[in-house]
């Protein structure tokens, strides 16, 4: 019998105090579902980077996770300024982070690159002044 699980986590922009909180919780839930090793590691990196992106750049957003027998599907939808040049944003080391974000060790310009690198499927859609949707697929 196939089973599916779905979780949703809200993330608030600028809330650096709680950065990583949703991802730690997501990892715990995935572990409870028996997901381990490289799949768990890759999902944790992808959700963490997504969470930090929402906090750093958007007003608010949601991380949705769907776990099926074959895949882990993560949709990250935010309300925010959007990304005007996606191709440039994907380049390793490119970042629009301000000094305050960088001082904390964020804004290395690795977030989207890390997410893509950890995913078996990756799609990014963005509309300026509206927000960004990132769809990630990780095969189990």
């Amino acid at each position, binding site marked *: 019998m196939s089973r599916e699980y779905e979780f949703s986590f809200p993330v608030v922009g600028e809330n650096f105090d709680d950065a*990583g909180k949703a991802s*730690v919780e997501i990892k715990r839930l995935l572990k409870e579902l028996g997901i381990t090793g490289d799949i768990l*590691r890759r999902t*944790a990196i992808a959700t*963490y980077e997504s969470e930090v992106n929402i906090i750093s750049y958007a007003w608010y957003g949601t991380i949705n996770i769907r776990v099926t027998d074959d895949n882990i599907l993560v949709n990250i939808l935010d309300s925010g300024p959007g990304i005007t040049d996606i191709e440039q944003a994907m380049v390793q080391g490119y970042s629009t982070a301000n000094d305050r974000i960088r001082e*904390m*060790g*964020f804004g290395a310009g690795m977030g989207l690159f890390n997410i893509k690198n950890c995913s078996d499927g990756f799609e990014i859609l963005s509309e300026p002044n509206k927000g960004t949707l990132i769809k990630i697929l990780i095969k189990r």
Partner: protein
Amino acid sequence: MNLILLAEKLDLTVRCGADSLDREVSGGYSGDLLSHVMANSRKDDVWITCQSHQNIVAVSALKEHAGIILVLGKEPDKDTLEKASLEGIPLLVTELSGFEAAGRIYSLLHP
């Protein structure tokens, strides 16, 4: 090698997580850019950094590090200590530089 022995050899001071010091350290990662640490560090690594704010705890929890070593005499923020205690992540401090701490830990792990 576990953290107790490592702390002894490098004369590190334990700030929290004393209960988890028997944890085995299999390697290390040195860095202050959180995305690099997320991408490149491994489970059971000891993380050497000069970042002392609370966000290091989530990174370390997600990567399942053996512990965090703050170098250059950095002290963890109050929030960092609270969160690390809650997650059971050992936080240790030293006056050593990141270079020296990493070098000495590498020598101990790869005699």
